[in-house]
């Protein structure tokens, strides 16, 4: 049976935004899936002109600020890619603990979310937050710190199987000389022989002679493995399963030929026919689940969001390590089911569900669930048919919504 427009549009909105929020599918259903994809791609970046409070490193104001942007009804692919890059090239507040420098790094994610990966890497490499996070700060040619040179290759560009120790050591030399100044919050470069490569002094790196940090970034970005590595990650994120070799070859070629233009890559993925047919192929990640669930519940408390995300282990600005968050079915594990249910049982009674003649249909609509298995319907019907609740419509509506939010259909993307 062919998928309906509502099913496809709901899928597109699950993958390209942090929704759908109630009513959103209905407003796009007449446009159809492809035009919805284009509409989400065309949505402009959300404004950063009213930044969070950055003065208190004990506060989590920036986390709330970001959650508000994700939950914005104007969020599109740009916002979704901002989150993607946070997991690929992460910086963690738990180590850096310095919002003043983390904010500019976050703005780089936004600036280049659909921009050029090479330019982004050149900037993030020497941004104070990254210098602190991966120990580039005060790494000198006399005492190079290898951490950034290793993770840059292993996790941000060419992939672990291509990393050899000589390139880690030489990369560290070329990257040396930077530090984050604690008074100004700026990155500074020491152009002296004990700290950095001398003018024109090159090191052998990935088969090239490279000079300083821009040379390192050019070399990793010129390497054919980088386009493939990022294309694979982006495909997994949007499509939810591994690409075939042919798909990955073609995607990597497209990305490389574009000069590592992120918008070109994402557009190619979203317009691949496999994107629309891959419904429910991966878990809804915690940020996706929490924001969509809160919208269905009609709630906006950022504290509640943060509590749940913390318990599930996916709080923005707090990646578990430099590899970001794992993908896979671990996000529908028993402990995740408990954490989600703990939020879902607090659902208020939604008026459209309370008053509906068919409360199951109304609850499903509220949660943008247009593709529902017979087993999940059976479970919902169990609540609708409960004699003790027949005259308690508000209470019944609350349980129905809680069960919808806990169902496989809502917990998968």
């Amino acid at each position, binding site marked *: 049976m062919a998928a309906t427009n509502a099913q496809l549009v709901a899928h597109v909105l699950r993958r390209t935004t942090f929704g759908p929020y109630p009513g959103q599918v209905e407003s796009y259903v007449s446009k159809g899936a492809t035009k919805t994809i284009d509409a989400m791609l065309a949505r402009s970046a959300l404004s950063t002109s009213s930044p969070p409070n950055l003065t208190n490193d004990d*506060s*989590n104001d920036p986390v709330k600020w970001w959650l508000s942007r994700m939950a914005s009804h104007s969020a599109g692919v740009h916002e979704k890619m901002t989150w993607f890059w946070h997991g690929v090239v992460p910086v*963690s507040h*738990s*180590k850096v*603990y310095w919002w003043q420098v983390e904010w500019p790094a976050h703005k780089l994610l936004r600036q280049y979310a659909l921009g050029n990966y090479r330019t982004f890497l050149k900037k993030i490499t020497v941004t104070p937050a990254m210098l602190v996070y991966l*120990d580039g700060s*005060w790494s000198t040619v006399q*005492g*190079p*710190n290898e*951490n950034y040179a*290793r993770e840059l290759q292993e996790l941000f560009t060419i992939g*672990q199987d291509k990393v050899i*120790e000589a390139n*880690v050591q030489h990369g560290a030399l070329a990257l040396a000389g930077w530090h984050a100044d604690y008074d100004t919050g700026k990155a500074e470069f020491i152009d002296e022989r004990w700290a950095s490569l001398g003018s024109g002094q090159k090191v052998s790196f990935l088969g090239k002679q490279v000079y300083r940090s821009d040379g390192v970034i050019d070399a990793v970005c010129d390497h054919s493995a980088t386009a493939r590595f990022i294309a694979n990650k982006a495909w997994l994120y949007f499509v939810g399963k591994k690409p075939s070799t042919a798909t990955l070859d073609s995607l990597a070629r497209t990305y490389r030929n574009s000069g590592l233009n992120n918008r070109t890559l994402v557009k190619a993925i979203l317009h691949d026919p496999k994107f629309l047919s891959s419904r429910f*192929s991966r*878990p809804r990640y915690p940020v996706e689940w929490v924001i969509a669930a809160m919208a269905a519940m009609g709630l906006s408390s950022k504290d509640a969001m*943060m*509590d*749940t995300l*913390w*318990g*599930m*282990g996916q709080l923005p600005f707090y*990646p*578990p*390590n430099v*590899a970001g968050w794992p993908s896979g*079915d*671990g*996000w*529908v*594990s*028993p*402990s*995740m*089911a*408990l*954490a989600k*249910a*703990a939020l879902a049982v607090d659902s208020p009674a939604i008026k459209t569900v309370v008053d509906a003649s068919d409360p199951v249909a109304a609850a499903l609509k509220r949660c943008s669930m247009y593709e529902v298995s017979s*087993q*999940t319907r*059976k*479970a*919902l019907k*169990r*609540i609708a048919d*409960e004699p*003790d*609740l027949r005259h*308690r419509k508000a*209470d019944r509506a609350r*349980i129905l919504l*809680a*069960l919808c939010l*806990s169902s*496989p259909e809502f917990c*998968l993307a």
Partner: protein
Amino acid sequence: MKLIDRRAFLELGLASGAGLAATTLLPHAAAAARRPNIPSAAPVGKRKLVVLDMGGGNDGLSMFPPKGSGATADAYRSLRSRTRIESEDMIDFGGSNSVGMHRNLTRIKAWKPAVVLGVGVNKPDLSHFEMQRRWWSGDQDSTHLTSTGFLGRLCDQIGERSAPAVGISLGYGPSPSLNAARVTTLSMNPYSDGEFPRFWDVDMDSAWKAAWKIMAERQSNETVPFCSARDGAAYARHFSDLARALPGQGDGYPNSELGVQLRLAGQMLRQDNGIRIIHIPVFADFDTHDDHRNRHAEIMDMLDRAVDAFLKEMVATGHADEVLVVTTSEFGRRVPDNESNGLDHGAGSFVMLLGPVNQGFYGDYPDLTSLDRDDNIVATVHMNDYYATIAQKWFGVPSSEVISGGSAMSGIIDT
């Protein structure tokens, strides 16, 4: 790599979920001067394991530094001019004139641990992720790709299929080390009470649970993600019954995250509920690329207090003969220090076993005058042999069932 410091987060007062139990900071008695009474090990069928997984790369040399006048001690002092443990910061472990112990491990010393020196692999990789994968899967030289983890295979050997959980990771997501093929293993947020969320109205709650049960029934015609989601829902309910029946929290635990994790482990291990293995990711920043000496010393103190509280509880409640505590880490640190007063990624590290074990050093101390080409120690004991020891000597499981090519070390555990 930086492992997230959740304690710092908690101190921000954010993790205020219902599962967060009040913790009290109790003044700690001075370290016990005598060995607390751990009887000989319980019968094999009653034995349990706690694994302290020190992700990030824990430096073994700083836990048990060389001392005295040997060539290795000289090499240590010169290669680590900025980060070495000075002799006044060492305590005597006993049984060796050439190896000391970090003084922040005084409480642990009183528990008479077995220490295995120089545990590593044949061909080390310097990536956290590659080495964690090998340690979690029990795939020493990256030649036996498998979807199960070492601890998961052990759970398959020793656990009951009907148990709500045989292995539990007390972290913030599943651990690949516990991937099992036959029995249930899962993860639990250490600040959660593990109980199934409820509606407080009785009629609502019974409808909720009845509907949940239907929703959690696995359907043979559904895709893998659907089956995983329904299984997750089913085990969540099943495990909740176990969690509700746990005995009360033990006393005297420090206010660290490891203290909270070990206190919960204590609750789970004090009754026979089917749980046999508890994996504890230690959320401390072992990845000391800078300021190693101070940062590592703080972690050792945190470890010392939490482990001491746990073992005291096991003794006080009569379970000390059933529980073995072991440590793992994907690698140690580079032998020469870097200019940031830190230590880059290394190869082998040292591990400890606590419980019904015979105190002492096992394996040879790495020769610090003969390092590998990356300036790291050459392993003197293989990861597989360490794992084989745990499997065979503690659980009585033939090591070949769970690990390829390891042989159990003798002397550490009396079988």
